[in-house]
C-alpha cells in the first residue's frame, strides 16, 4: 500500500508542477514505483514538463467517467524501467467534471500498485483543490520567499489542517535567491518557517537550469550536477525517511576555514 502526497500552494506560479515532476523523478531514481497525477483539469501541464505530452491517449476524466481502465490512461516514462507513470489531466473539460469522492476512489486504487502517488494540485482553493486533496495522505506546501506566496501558503495550511485524513503538511521554499535574502530584500528561510510554523522539508535555489530543463521536457532532477537537482533529490530522500541536513545556500569554494567555523557552530 503506497502513500499519496499532494503538492499544493494556493498561489499559482510558485512551482507546484515543477516540484511534482522533480519529486516524482527523484523518487523513481531512488527505485520507488511512482505515479504522478495531474489534477489541474483544463490547464494541464505536468505532461509537458515531463516531456510526455505526445503520448497521452486517455486522461483522468476518461478514467473517472469509465471510458477506459486506469492502466490504459497511465503514460509510462521511458527513462525509467517501469517505475514512473503519469496520469494526465483532461484538457477539454473543467474541474467540475470530477468529484472529490471519485478522486479518492481513484487514488486508493492507485495506492495498491504504487509506492508513491504524487498529486499535482491546481492553484486556488476551489473545486480543483478539493479534488486534489481528497485522496491524499500527506501534503507538501510549496511557497516562494514572497509575501503574497507566503500569505496564500498560510491560507492553504489552514485548510489542510482541517482535513482529517492528511498528516500535518510539510513546507518547500522554492526559488530562493541567496543574494536577495542576504540583503534583506526577500523573506529569509527562518522568517518563513516561523511565520508558517510547519516543518520545512526542503529549500530549492532559483536556478535557470530548472526552466531550461522544463522547456525540454526533462525534469532537472535527472541532471545530477545542478543545485536544484540535488535539492529535489534531497527532498525525495527526506520523504523516504532519511535525515539529510539542508544544503547550504552559499556559493561553494569558501575554503577550509569557513567550513571549520561552521563545524564548530561559530558564525
Amino acid at each position, binding site marked *: 500500500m503506497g502513500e499519496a502526497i499532494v503538492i499544493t500552494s494556493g498561489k499559482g506560479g510558485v512551482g507546484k508542477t515543477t516540484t511534482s515532476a522533480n519529486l516524482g523523478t527523484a523518487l523513481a531514481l531512488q527505485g520507488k514505483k511512482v505515479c504522478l497525477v495531474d489534477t489541474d483539469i483544463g490547464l494541464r501541464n505536468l505532461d509537458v514538463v515531463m516531456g510526455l505530452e505526445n503520448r497521452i491517449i486517455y486522461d483522468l476524466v476518461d478514467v473517472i467517467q469509465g471510458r477506459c481502465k486506469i492502466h490504459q490512461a497511465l503514460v509510462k516514462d521511458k527513462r525509467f524501467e517501469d517505475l514512473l507513470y503519469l496520469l494526465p489531466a483532461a484538457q477539454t473539460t473543467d474541474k467540475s467534471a470530477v468529484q472529490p469522492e471519485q478522486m479518492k476512489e481513484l487514488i486508493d486504487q492507485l495506492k495498491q500498485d504504487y509506492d508513491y502517488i504524487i498529486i499535482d494540485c491546481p492553484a486556488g482553493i476551489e473545486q480543483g483543490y478539493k479534488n486534489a486533496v481528497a485522496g491524499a495522505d500527506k501534503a507538501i506546501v510549496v511557497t516562494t520567499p514572497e509575501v503574497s506566496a507566503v*500569505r*496564500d501558503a*498560510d*491560507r492553504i*495550511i*489552514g485548510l489542510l*489542517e482541517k482535513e482529517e485524513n492528511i498528516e500535518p503538511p510539510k513546507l518547500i521554499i522554492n526559488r530562493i535567491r541567496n543574494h536577495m535574502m542576504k540583503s534583506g530584500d526577500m523573506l529569509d528561510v527562518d522568517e518563513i518557517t516561523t511565520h*508558517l*510554523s510547519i516543518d520545512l522539508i526542503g529549500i530549492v535555489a532559483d536556478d535557470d537550469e530548472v526552466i531550461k530543463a522544463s522547456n525540454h521536457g526533462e525534469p532537472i532532477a535527472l541532471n545530477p550536477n545542478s543545485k536544484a537537482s540535488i535539492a529535489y533529490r534531497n527532498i525525495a530522500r527526506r520523504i523516504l525517511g532519511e535525515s539529510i541536513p539542508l544544503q547550504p545556500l552559499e556559493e561553494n569554494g569558501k575554503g577550509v576555514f569557513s567550513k571549520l567555523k561552521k563545524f564548530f557552530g561559530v558564525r
Partner: protein
Amino acid sequence: MKKRPNVTIKGTKDGLTLHLDDLCSYQDLKRELDSKLSAGYRAHEDRQLIPVRVQSGNRYLSPEQKEELRALIRQKKNLVVDSIESNVLTLEEADKLHEERQIITVARMVRSGQILEVPGDLLLIGDVNPGGTVMAAGNIFIMGSLKGIAHAGCKGDDQAVIAASSMKPAQLRISDCYNRAPDHIKSEEKHEMECAYIDQNRHIVVDRLQSLIHLRPDLTRLEGGR
C-alpha cells in the same frame, strides 16, 4: 401566628426597596403590591420621582413577569423602577454568564482566512497570521505574535483590552472603535509585550503591557490571596 406581609417596603436614602416574599403565589403578590402602593403613597406631595429597587428573593421572575411588575409600579404616580433583583438564575443564564466570564484557552495558529471567536476572554497560545482574525466578547491575550486582526469586546465592551507578546497587528478593534497599523512600520521596532485599550477620547491606544495594571485593575480576578 400572624402572617408576614408578602410585600415589605423599606425607605433608603436612595429611594425605596421593595422586598417581595418568595413563597406566596404570584397572583397574591401582585394584588398585595397593588393595594400597598395605592394605599401608602398616594399622600406624597412632592412630585419628585422616587427610584424603586425590587428584590424578589428566591423567586424566579420571567421577563414577562418583570415587565408586569414594572408596569404596575410605574402606574403609581411618582415611582419608577430602577432595578429588579433576584437570587435565582435560569440554567441558561448561568451558563451564559459563566461563558462570558471565563478565559478560553486555545492552542493553535490562526491562519489567513480563519476566524476564531470566543464568548469570554481569549487566551491564544500561537500566532495570528496576516489575514487571520480573532474575536472575543471580553479581552484578548495572545502569547504569540499578533499580525492579523484582533477584535476585543466585540459585543460592545469598551473596557476590553488586547495584549500580545508581539504586537504587529493589521488592525485592532475594541468594541466599536478601530485602528489600523501605520502604512510603514520600521522593522527594527520590536513591539514586544504590548497592550491596546480605549482611552478617554475613544481612541485605541497601544502601550506597554504593564500600564494595564493601573488602567484596568478589574483584570485581576484573584480574590484575597497573599
